[in-house]
């Protein structure tokens, strides 16, 4: 047990607030400007996704899992496909795997650029936020070309990928032109950020998360890697075996490290994309030779853009979903951030929370915690008890 400090007051922020955008609530317990403790309430986007999936045909699951999150729609689609593919032992053609990796890395870059946009917005730096959103447009376009939709490209399907997402030569050329152009601009952008002393004075040394804490709270993904924890599930995934890329690990663990880590990771993504364009094998893109049927409980871990993502489910004999579970990176990342923002100024604390790239639509699943009564509370009960003051 940590010793509880004397706290003067509480400042609560959200769920409608410029720094958050998504609905969640940050409660900061502060003395003057210094944050002594922090609590993040994340249940405002609860849609009961796991329950919706119960009893749906497995192909339909893709539609819903994709809508877990609009930023990394692809990781959810892909991972829910992987679960079924692993459980039913469906072979995926190589070409399909390559294209899945391609769209995933494209979306990873887009997601990291949202992170920059969000972080700079929280820093109050509108111009750079806009620059990163402008850079991001390249990848939104590419997603629209490949998948037909800017947000939900919906590329993987069970057994392979959707025919529309097959890469033609002209599309390949477009992609490589765009990313070459992007890389030039992006390099300048990153150099410019790192040279800006005002921004760096806000980032450096703030929001420290030690390696021990990162591991203890299971802050996976870029946050853990920025704290010196070399953990990237991509290195374990067979889909990524053909590609040569480095896992970026930094040791500082502060906000600057979290920004720089992602900035460097984008270059690795570009590297992977180039390899795909060069080595894309010929062949079929989808294996339709499977039937949905009984599947035992299967788990699949995946490196989402913000950390470790777990999907798991079982199918009954008709191929309907039973017991779907999603464990996304943000809950554990946020727990780490609750820890990391202690001791900083309020404005910095919010930056720290933003720097873990929180994204709550995926993680908000458990709703009511019932302290003392054994009966479950209804919506009205809660409203009556806690809703208005």
């Amino acid at each position, binding site marked *: 047990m940590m010793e509880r400090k004397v706290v003067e007051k509480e400042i609560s922020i959200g769920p409608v607030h410029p720094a958050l955008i998504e609905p969640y609530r940050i409660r900061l317990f502060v003395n003057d400007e210094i944050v002594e403790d922090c609590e993040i309430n994340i249940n405002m986007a609860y849609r009961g996704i796991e329950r919706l999936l119960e009893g749906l045909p497995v*192909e339909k699951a893709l539609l819903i899992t994709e809508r877990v999150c609009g930023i990394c729609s692809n990781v959810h689609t892909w991972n829910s496909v992987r679960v079924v593919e692993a459980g039913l032992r469906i072979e995926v053609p190589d070409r399909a795997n390559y294209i899945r990796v391609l769209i995933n890395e494209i979306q990873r870059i887009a997601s990291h650029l949202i992170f920059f946009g969000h972080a700079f917005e929280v820093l109050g730096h509108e111009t750079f936020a806009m620059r990163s959103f402008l850079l991001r447009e390249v990848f939104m376009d590419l997603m629209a070309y490949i998948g037909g939709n800017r947000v939900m490209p919906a590329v993987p399907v069970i057994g392979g990928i959707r025919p529309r997402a097959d890469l033609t030569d002209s599309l390949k050329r477009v992609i490589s032109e765009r990313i070459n152009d992007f890389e030039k601009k992006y390099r300048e952008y990153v150099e410019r950020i790192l040279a800006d002393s005002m921004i760096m004075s806000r980032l450096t040394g703030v929001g420290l998360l030690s390696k021990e804490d990162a591991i203890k709270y299971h802050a996976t993904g870029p946050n853990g890697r920025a704290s010196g924890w070399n953990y990237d599930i991509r290195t374990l995934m067979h889909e990524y075996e053909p590609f040569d890329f480095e896992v970026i690990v930094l040791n500082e663990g502060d906000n600057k490290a979290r920004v720089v880590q992602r900035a460097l990771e984008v270059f690795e993504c570009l590297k992977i994309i180039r390899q795909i364009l060069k080595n894309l094998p010929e062949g079929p893109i989808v294996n339709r030779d499977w039937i949905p049927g009984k599947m035992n409980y299967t788990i699949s871990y995946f490196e989402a853009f913000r950390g470790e993502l777990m999907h798991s489910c079982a199918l009954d004999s008709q191929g309907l979903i039973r017991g779907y579970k999603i464990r996304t990176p943000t809950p554990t990342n946020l727990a780490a951030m609750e820890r990391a923002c202690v001791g900083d100024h309020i404005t910095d604390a919010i930056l720290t929370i933003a720097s873990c790239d929180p994204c709550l639509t995926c993680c908000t699943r458990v709703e009511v915690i019932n302290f003392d009564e054994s009966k479950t509370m209804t919506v009205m009960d809660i409203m009556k008890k806690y809703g208005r003051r």
Partner: protein
Amino acid sequence: MIPLLRVMLQGIYRNFIRIIAKVDRATSIEIRDKVLTLSVPAWETVLDEMCIGCGGCEKVCPTKAITMVPLEKPVEIIEGYRREKVPRIDLMKCVFCLNCHDFCPIFALFGEAAPIHARDVGSPKMTLSEILKKPIKAPPEKIEELRKLIPSEFFKAIRR
């Protein structure tokens, strides 16, 4: 120090030019024109030239978002079969569940022949007659379902 200075000077120069001469402007004028004339094209949802007018999608939509609109000039697709109506999707009611897409025998809604899960009308690489010549591969239940949902002459057309 030197790189910092270089970045700064470069930045000053570039932004000065940006302010004075509006260079580097990234705003899309095309979109601007469309928005100002309120003419952003709506989502493309139905491939009219692919649809055989069977009406199955209308029956299967859970939110009744689809209505079949009679064509002014019916088109003869294959000898003996004429397309008289095409579906129109009311996007206000549509929930993108893609049931219609799944049931459409030739996937003329929301995209190309993917088993499921498409979002946007794709670019069809085949013409309708080519598609109709290909025997469709589907599990027996789906075929039963199709038989119930679409008129028998169309059914014969696609079952050839």
